[in-house]
């Protein structure tokens, strides 16, 4: 088919479809700003998901832009796609967060806790054109969310006696732990078959926007405060006043750019091999840390030492400091094959390596000096300044590289009907030293996927479901990896599962 790409449609129909695509594009471009994602790596594309991600050797739909852009060269027609992914994480966490000597900090230990249960909806959208007149080059743009996570928890409350419940009317924030991490990828790609029926190459550009939220309590040692009787004398500080509690709520956003390359090789009429590489992406993040200090309230301590008055009279103080950091997203190298066992049945397998070890420590660079004013109106220049305290000096990841295995199968069981199934095993990237309930990747994962699709003329609709089983995990030792005085992992018992649904619609023209 060498003519105009809409040659088989009447003009009015083309206009209608164009209008719908335009409207859909606008909607889908704006919706993601309102959405949450979950799970650090998200499967891109419904078909690829149904195959457990064993897609590099097949790569025969738009999501090849992410998995293996060389596969775009084999699209038979131009196509427009939209997908709605629905993700339902079901985390459970039983905290056992205590100081190294076993003392309580205020965590709701030995209690099974759930995050605010939510269903995450997010779309993917793409349009790729097959330029038959330009030697069969396929080019286009995809828009998807390759990474995401998010959870909000109520895990903490100050210890009894920290505040005065009869005087302090400001409760500690209910949502005291929160993470949200969304990477939106605007992904122009191009692919061409360079050796007919043998070899195709593809190239993509990943223009990624990230929104990142991180919230947790910080603990500022009281001995840093200029209180005469306590300053640098921990033996004079009574628990629960050993630390002043700060709610640290950081929000960032930023952009980064990377590329991905793909190759597709037809080993035989029945076997295709695919390989791909995604470059690392460094996203420069800029944002603010909104800090709220919750002061203890103990009039007796103030009576004994008037220099404690600004810090031991209850209430809270807020400030916001500008923070910059860089998020180092991983590179990925993967290879796979597709074996067409019969006209109806195809088997696939993939292996991929992801350099999550690039996620080390998110160093937080405060570029403005925060000014604190106590509830009594005192200016607090010392001790609570993020430039001078160990609070929030960095977020420790120290993740490790992982290798994922996937297998999938596709079966044309009836005219126009295709069934797909897939499985993958994906080890967790998070070591014990930095495991926390905020990031869903609690443990090694095993994923089962099933999907169906149905073609009606130029349209294809499909649905698939994914169930991810996570191993249970237990952490017993609390760690402060970077020595900033703030623990970096959350001991306790972790368990979770995840259900996902993918609805997709494709129009080929």
């Amino acid at each position, binding site marked *: 088919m060498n003519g105009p790409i809409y040659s088989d449609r009447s003009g009015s129909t083309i206009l209608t479809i164009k209008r719908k695509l335009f409207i859909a594009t606008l909607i889908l471009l704006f919706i993601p700003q309102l959405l949450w994602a979950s799970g650090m790596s998200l499967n891109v594309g419904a078909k690829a998901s149904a195959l457990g991600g064993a897609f590099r050797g097949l790569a025969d739909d738009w999501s090849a832009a992410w998995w293996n852009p060389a596969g775009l060269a084999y699209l038979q027609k131009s196509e427009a796609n939209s997908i709605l992914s629905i993700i339902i994480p079901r985390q459970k966490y039983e905290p056992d967060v205590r100081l190294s000597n076993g003392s309580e900090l205020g965590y709701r230990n030995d*209690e099974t806790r759930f995050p605010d*249960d939510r269903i995450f909806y997010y779309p993917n959208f793409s349009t790729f054109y097959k330029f038959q007149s330009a030697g069969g080059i396929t080019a286009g743009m995809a828009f998807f969310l390759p990474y995401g996570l998010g959870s909000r928890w109520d895990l903490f409350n100050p210890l009894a006696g920290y505040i005065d419940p009869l005087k302090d009317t400001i409760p500690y924030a209910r949502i005291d732990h929160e993470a949200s991490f969304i990477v939106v990828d605007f992904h122009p790609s191009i692919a061409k078959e360079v050796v007919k029926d043998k070899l195709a190459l593809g190239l993509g550009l990943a223009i990624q926007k990230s929104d990142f939220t991180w919230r947790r309590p910080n603990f500022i040692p009281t001995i840093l405060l200029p209180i005469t009787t306590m300053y640098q004398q921990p033996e004079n500080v*009574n628990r629960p006043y050993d630390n002043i509690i700060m709610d640290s709520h950081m929000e960032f956003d930023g952009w980064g750019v990377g590329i991905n390359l793909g190759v597709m090789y037809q080993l035989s009429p029945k076997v295709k091999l695919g390989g791909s590489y995604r470059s690392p992406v460094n996203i420069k993040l800029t944002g603010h840390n909104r800090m709220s200090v919750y002061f203890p309230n103990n009039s007796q301590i103030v009576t004994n030492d008037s220099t404690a008055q600004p810090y031991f009279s209850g209430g809270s103080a807020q400030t916001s400091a500008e923070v910059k950091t860089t998020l180092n997203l991983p590179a990925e190298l993967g290879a796979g094959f597709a074996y067409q066992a019969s006209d109806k049945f195809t088997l696939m397998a993939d292996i991929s390596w992801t350099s999550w070890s690039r996620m080390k420590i998110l160093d937080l660079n405060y570029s403005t000096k925060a000014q604190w004013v106590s509830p009594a109106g005192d200016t607090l220049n010392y001790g609570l300044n993020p430039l001078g305290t160990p609070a929030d000096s960095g977020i420790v990841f120290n993740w490790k590289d992982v290798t994922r295995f996937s297998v999938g199968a596709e079966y044309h069981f009836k005219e126009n009907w295709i069934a797909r199934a897939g499985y993958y095993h994906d080890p967790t990237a998070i070591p014990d030293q930095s495991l926390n309930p905020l990031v869903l990747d609690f443990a090694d994962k095993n994923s089962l996927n099933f999907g169906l699709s149905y073609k009606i003329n130029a349209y294809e609709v499909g649905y698939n479901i994914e169930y991810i089983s996570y191993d249970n995990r237990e952490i017993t030792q609390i760690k402060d990896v970077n020595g900033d005085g703030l623990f970096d992992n959350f001991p306790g018992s972790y368990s979770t599962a995840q259900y996902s649904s993918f609805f997709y619609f494709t129009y080929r023209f």
Partner: protein
Amino acid sequence: MRKLSLILMLGLSLIIALSGCKKRKNPVEPTILKQPTYFQISQNLWPALDNPPLSNQFSIPSRTVVVSIPGEVPIDNQGHVPLTWKKKYPVLYFLTDFGQDALTFAQTYRVNDIADELTAKGEIQPMIVVIADGNNPMGGGFYVNSIGGRYEDYIALDLRLKMDTSIFTRIVNDSTKKRGISGVGMGGYGAFRVAMDYPQFYSSVSAISAPLSIDAGPNGDWFTDYLRATAVQESLTFSPYPDSNIVPITDPLDKTTPATNWLFAMALGFSPHDPGDTDSSSYFKIENYPQGGPFRGVDLPFDSAGSLRASIWTNWVDSNDVKTLLAGPKAGSLANTKIYFEVGLQDSYMLQIANKNFNNFMATQSYTYIYHEYTGYGSFPADHFNFAFDRIVAILKFHSSNF
């Protein structure tokens, strides 16, 4: 037909997918019931503290005791409980440390807030906590009956009877099984002494950082290695009689001389000077108490040369050391009493030595007891009482489990 099949299939899948969507709920936050403040029992004259040899100016028989009442009790600010109220509560007596005033202690360490929260969470049963002090111008006399006042009788007789029969009688369970005694430092020592001497009144006893074994043991010798040695380092000086030594009572909480302060408070309780004792080598007089009367004072168990005075030291150990008492004259006195004691491993008064030795001793006995050692974290040591929150929680839980 195909469309119908497709719709049915998608619908079924959606139902399966959404079946896991039910919102889960975290445990409901318990409602914490609270009284608006502590109750106080101010009595002008506690009989056991009245008219001791060192005068009322020293024993202070007009004392205030602080009481924490469970939040669920419908009690008014006068201490009145409706006649319809039938529930009675166990009572924990808590004795404060050297130099600590009861109300200051209660307000500093927020015992009521801690008890109320633990009660709301179901971690302890609701209980009345009575906080009493044995403070005097020397910081205290270790709650024993002595020339400074009969503190032990004050706690075990006067105060107990006041609680059992006076304004709180409608909510106090006066059964021995529902009564415990505890304390910190000097108060922990006092709690053990009271429990040993009046075992018929208390079913459980506990002590935080208390000198429960003062002499030599497998872990060292608390008195010799710490108390005496440190007091000497603190420039404790002796003057020859008749220019008698004077007890430094101007500031019992002077942090530059903690061992000296403890030494004299213990001497007040354990070795008040016998006017008939002609050996004045360890005698310190208490200046101006009583006004105009014969000088009264204490004997330290060692003289200006640092040598132990055998008669005094023997009295300290044989009549006042908890370990020695339990091994001898008070053996079996705590047979029916649940026992808990603990210490911080970085105690400023080196009481880990005393407690480790006491634990060694208890291990050879048939008592049921719990011993716990606190360690610090990071640069935050487990000192005498800076883990106040943790220790109060542990004490409340221990006694609650035994009521």
